[in-house]
């Protein structure tokens, strides 16, 4: 083969350079395109039939995506154009997800804040008609705290015990089958619709065992909903407790049950508490199972074991479906109280998990 001429060699260098470094859009391209697209969309909004915030935004995004892809395709080539398209898409999905969250929270806070007052928090709905202003959420708040509290008292220990079995005992049990079955059905249980759990509690405890529809029946339903969440989160925490800790304890001659109680659980406490609080937060807003298993009351009932007892979700459902201005406003007030309750649990759990938690060794 003949040697490459100087020109050919130079040409191939250029090709190589183009392949490696390639053309690139300037750094200001993306912000400039963004501003341009918004301006153009605004112009179209004023001059043509494009109207509304949503419509204008969609047009702006389309202009941006089109211009960026086209420009990038010319300068950088197909692969980079596709990459930029994908990046825009990924960022866009995130904004799409953020929008409803902001909108929901804003709606609840704005509408709820109009109703919230000390009267609203400290009175019940006794003798308040649906069209009248006034009344409050106290009876429902008591109900929710008691029902969720009982559910937590039953559900959290059961969940922790199950997790202990799955992590500490099932792997060394003679037959692994039980452990596998429990683990599988814990997962499946997470997906059982809450309304089905409500049906089950009603048919089993109310129809068959003769229990009253009461706050406690609601608690049972909430327990069942909470259980798999507690099991899963506790299990995860127990699994990351270092094995060295357990073995050090065994080496000191400490029996397994003492090791679990005094070494494993304390190490994982923060994580377990976090998981449990998240589970509680999850069930505190459940409406469907309580609709089937409790009776709504408009008055204060401190006893979850007998008689009708209100709860926040049912209070909201009742007031909202009455449909009068006063009652819908009360429903939004209840929603704000409920969301504050849930978010408090949630934030506390997250803070605990951020600042403590099992250290990974």
């Amino acid at each position, binding site marked *: 083969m003949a040697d490459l001429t100087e020109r050919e060699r130079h040409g191939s260098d250029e090709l190589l350079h183009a392949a490696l470094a390639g053309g690139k859009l300037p750094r200001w391209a993306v912000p400039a395109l963004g501003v341009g697209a918004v301006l153009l969309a605004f112009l179209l909004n004023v001059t043509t039939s494009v109207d*509304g915030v*949503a419509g204008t935004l969609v047009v702006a995004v389309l202009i941006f995506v089109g211009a960026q892809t086209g420009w990038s395709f010319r300068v950088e080539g197909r692969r980079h154009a*596709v*990459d930029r*398209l*994908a*990046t825009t898409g*990924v*960022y866009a*999905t*995130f904004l799409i*997800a953020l929008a*409803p*969250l902001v909108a*929901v929270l804003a*709606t609840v806070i704005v509408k709820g804040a109009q109703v919230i007052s000390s009267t609203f928090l400290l009175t019940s709905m006794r003798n308040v008609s649906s069209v009248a202003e006034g009344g409050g959420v106290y009876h429902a708040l008591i109900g929710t705290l008691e029902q969720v509290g009982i559910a937590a008292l039953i559900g959290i220990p059961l969940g922790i*015990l199950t997790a*202990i079995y799955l992590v*500490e*005992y099932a*792997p060394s049990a003679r037959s692994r089958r*039980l452990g596998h079955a*429990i683990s*599988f*059905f*814990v997962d499946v*249980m*997470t*997906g059982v619709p*809450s*309304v*089905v*759990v409500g*049906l*089950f509690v009603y*048919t089993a405890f109310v*129809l068959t065992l003769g229990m009253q529809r009461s706050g406690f029946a609601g608690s049972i339903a909430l327990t*069942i909903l909470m*259980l*798999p969440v507690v*099991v899963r989160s506790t299990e995860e925490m127990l699994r990351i407790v270092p*094995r060295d800790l*357990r*073995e050090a304890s*065994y080496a000191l*001659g400490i*029996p397994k*049950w003492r090791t679990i109680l005094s070494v494993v659980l304390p190490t994982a406490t923060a994580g377990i508490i976090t998981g449990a609080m998240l589970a509680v*937060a*999850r069930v505190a807003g459940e*409406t*469907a199972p309580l*609709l*089937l298993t409790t009776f709504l009351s408009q008055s204060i009932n401190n006893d979850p074991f007998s008689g009708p007892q209100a709860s926040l*979700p049912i209070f909201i459902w009742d007031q909202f479906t009455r449909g009068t201005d006063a009652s819908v406003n009360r429903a*939004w007030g209840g929603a704000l109280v409920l*969301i504050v309750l*849930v*978010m408090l649990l*949630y934030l506390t759990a997250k803070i605990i998990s951020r600042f403590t938690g099992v250290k990974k060794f």
Partner: protein
Amino acid sequence: MSTTLEPPGTPAPPVPHPGIKGAAVRRGDRLFVGLSRGAGVLILVTMAAIAVFLIWKSIPGLQANTANFFTTAEWFPDQKPSVFGIAALTFGTLMTAGIAMLLAVPVGVGIALFIAHYASRRLASTLGFVTDLLAAVPSIIFGMWGIQYLTPHLVGLGQWLNDYLGFIPLFANEAGIYSRSILNAGIVLAIMILPTISAITREVFVQTPRAHIEAALALGATRWEMVRMAIFPFSRPGMISASMLGLGRALGETIAVALMLSATYDINIHITQPGGITFASNIALKWNEAGTIGLSALVASGLVLFVITLAVNMAARLVIARRAEFSGAN
């Protein structure tokens, strides 16, 4: 797996395998094993009991029913003769869940990608927290927001679909009313299942072996090519099962859908028109007015819902479990 050492026993008289078989079984241990195994078994018993009671209590209704349970759309169980069926419920449930999936799966995967591989690490943990917050909003609040705030904003979308895609029967709207439609309910459901899908997908994305990612990038792949060649193939089973878990949630969602739909018992493919009813919302709406046969009929429909969600969830879990077995990539 944490297969732990057997706790050493007290010095025992000579036994064939000291330290293993010779370990004394203490009372505390026996009690503790019993308790924890009992708690685990209770979960199995609960699951079995749910099935047993739903089947048992649905029998009276099914016996009284004079119509075909699967092909009837009406719901008049307390009438004489009793007529009810799940055709409309099945249609409404599948349509709303289907729309929710169509919208939520791409967006959920996008969010997961953004958090796992596009955002900076500090931003990522905050954003993960924010999407988790979405999961903490109770469903009744989504329902109220959906019907009072979102529905008026969706009228434009419905009209647009009718104007430009109205030649497709699905989007045609002859009524001129755009609230309480299957489409709107599907959109609210999509928002509600988003965190489920994105949380699980994110977990799987993060587990992609670093070596795969770096190999792709070192070969000159763009970020998107890396995502397609390294992350997606590794995460496909996880993405599928995350979607199915989201589907399970969408199928069983009750209160939000009950508030969003107009509860009509017919099969209407015009999804932008008022209409529709689902298994779960039907139970919530008919519960307090139902007589003996009515209750039993609702239990029967709940049984169908239970079986559907059970099948979806089990399938999802099996897909995940199979992946765990052969993903020796790490």
